[in-house]
C-alpha cells in the first residue's frame, strides 16, 4: 500500500468498507452499483481525509457522503435495472434468494429519497436529526417522509412478505 495514504485512513477503510457495502446494497439493490458506490464514497473520504479526521466523525460522515452520492448519482447510474418486463438482469455473482428479491424489489419501488430515509433510519439507526442533515431535509420532512415510505413499503410487500406486512 502506498505510503501516501494515512494509516488511520487505511484502518478506517478496512474496518468500514464491509458495512458500507451492505448499506450500498440496500440503497442500490445491485451488487455492481453497490461496489461502485462504496468506492466513490471511500474515494471522497480519502480526498478530504486530513480535514475530516480532525473535524468530523468519519463514520457518520461516510454515511452522509454515501447517501448524498447515491441520491446525486441517480442520473449517472440507474439505481436498479429497469427491465420493461420487470425481470431483473443477473445483478451480481451468486444466486438471488427469495428474501433479497422480495425486500430489495420493494425498496426499489420506492423513490430514491424514500429508500434513503428508510435505510438511514432503520438500517443505519440514524436519528431523525441526523437523517435530516444527511438528506438536507427538515426533521419534520424526514418524519413525514419516513412514515409515508414505511406505509408504502408495507403495502408493496403485502403479498410477497406476509410476516413483515402482517396486520
Amino acid at each position, binding site marked *: *500500500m*502506498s505510503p*501516501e495514504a494515512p494509516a488511520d485512513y487505511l484502518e478506517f*477503510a478496512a474496518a468500514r*468498507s*464491509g458495512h458500507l*457495502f*451492505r448499506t450500498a446494497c*440496500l440503497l442500490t439493490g445491485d*451488487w455492481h452499483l*453497490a*461496489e461502485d458506490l*462504496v*468506492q466513490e464514497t*471511500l474515494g*471522497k473520504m*480519502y*480526498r*478530504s481525509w486530513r*480535514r475530516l479526521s480532525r473535524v468530523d466523525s468519519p463514520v457518520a460522515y461516510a454515511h452522509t457522503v454515501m447517501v448524498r452520492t447515491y441520491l*446525486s*448519482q*441517480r*442520473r*449517472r447510474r*440507474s439505481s436498479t*435495472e*429497469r*427491465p*420493461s*418486463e420487470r*425481470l431483473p*438482469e443477473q445483478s*451480481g*455473482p*451468486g444466486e438471488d434468494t*427469495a*428474501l*433479497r428479491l422480495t*425486500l430489495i424489489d420493494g425498496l426499489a*419501488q*420506492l*423513490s430514491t*429519497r424514500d429508500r434513503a430515509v428508510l*435505510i438511514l433510519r*432503520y*438500517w443505519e439507526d440514524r436519528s431523525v436529526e441526523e437523517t435530516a442533515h444527511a438528506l*438536507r*431535509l427538515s426533521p419534520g*420532512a424526514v418524519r413525514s417522509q419516513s412514515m*409515508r415510505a*414505511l406505509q408504502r*413499503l*408495507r403495502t*408493496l410487500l403485502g403479498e410477497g412478505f*406476509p*410476516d*413483515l*406486512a*402482517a396486520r
Partner: protein
Amino acid sequence: MPFDDPAVGDTAAVDATPDELFAQRLPDRLGAAAEDFPPPGPHLDQRSLVRGKRMRRTRRLQIIGSTAAMAAVVAMVGGMLLHRGPSLPVGAAATPSPSQSAHTVPVPVAGPTVGPPVSAADMLATLERTLPPGGSYSKSFLGDGTGSAGGAPSAAIVYSTPHGSSEIDVTISRDTPGFPVDSEDKGGCIGIEERPYDVCTTTIEPDGSVLHSTTSFTHPDSDTGQKRWYADLMRPDGVQLFVEEFGASAGSADPLLSLNQLAAVVQSPVWAKAVAATPTPPAEALLPVQPGTLPASQMAHIFQSLLPAGGTVGNANGQDGFAEVVFDDGHGKAMIQVNAQPKAVDTAALFTCAQTTTYCRISTLPDGTRVMAVQTPNEKGGRASVWRVDTLRPDGYRVVALECNSYSEATPPTRPQPPLTFAQLQALATSPLWGH
C-alpha cells in the same frame, strides 16, 4: 426459512399498530437482505483508495465537494456543443472571475412562489401527454407529487408499442440555493474517464436553457447490456427536467423514444404546473473556493489554446481548476488533463521519485519553478501509460499536466505513446497563461 419471525408472538408487539410492527421488524429484515448479497470483490478498500487518489489528483485538491457552477456545464461537452440560438457568452456571463469565486458565500435567494401542489397522478397524466401517440401505458410503481415531504415531483411509466416496451422516468427539481450545481450532479456530460461508452451532446437553446442528451448503458462501465438513454434540461431559472428511458432488459435493443423525442418530453410546456409546484430546496452554504482558482471556462479556454495545432479536440470536460480533453493528432485518441492549484500543500510528498518505477526526473527552472516529469503505469491496472509533468512555482502555484496513450486511463491503449512529448507537457504546465 427467511420469513419466520419470532417477534410475531411477542407481547410488546401485540399492542402495536401494523405500521409500528412493521417498523419494529424492518431493521432485522434489512440486515438479512443486506447480508444476503454476495460479498464484495476482493480488496474493496484498496480499490476505493485508488479511486480516491485519482480524485485527489484530477480534481481540485483539498476541497471537499465540487464548486464548479453553471459555467462548468457550459464548458463541459461530450461529443458536440450545439447552439440552436444566439451564441451564449460561454462562461463569461455565468462564471465568476477568480477574485469573485474566491471564498464567495452567496446569499441564498428565495425561490419562486410554489404553485398549487401536483399529485403523483397529475405527474403520470402529464408524462403520458408528452409521449408519442399510438402507444399504450402501464402505470408506474414509481412517482411522486410534491407531497407533504416537499420532494421533487417524479413519474415513471412503461410505454409500449408494437416494437416493444420502455420504462420512462421523469423528475423535476430546482437548484439548491447557494449550493454548487455540479455537486448535485445535475446536468452536464460526464467525463470520458468515468463514462467511456456514453455519447453525450450539449445543446444551448435560444432561451439559455442547456440540454444534454446521452446514450448510455444501465451498467455504464461496459458497452453491452441494457441501454439507458436520458435527457436533462437545465433552465436559466434553476429548474431541471430530467427524463430517462430503458431498453429491454435482455439484449441490446434500443429504447423506444429517440433522443429528440426525449428532448421533446423535457421541453414540453405541459410541465408548467408541475414546475410551478416544485419547491426550492433549503439553502446550503457554498463551500469556500480556494482563492485564485481559475473558473472552468477559463481553464478550458487556456488549456485548449495551448494544445498543438492540427489535432482534433473532443470530450472537453472541466471544473474550476481542472480541464481535460480527448485529443487526436491522427495517430490515436489520447486523454490530456491539466490541474491548476493556487496554493499547493504537502508538496514535499509530491515532488519525489521514490514511488516511480518507470521514469522520473526532477529539475528546477531558472525562475525557481520545480518540475517533475513522471511516467507511470496507469493506476487502474490497465496497459495504458500515463505521463505527467507536475510543476510548482515559488509562490506555491501548482500546475499539473497529464496525458495517456488512450482516451482514458481505464481503456485500452490507442497508440504506443501519448501525443505530447515531456517537453510539450512541461511547456503546457509552465505557460504564463495560467496566471500568477
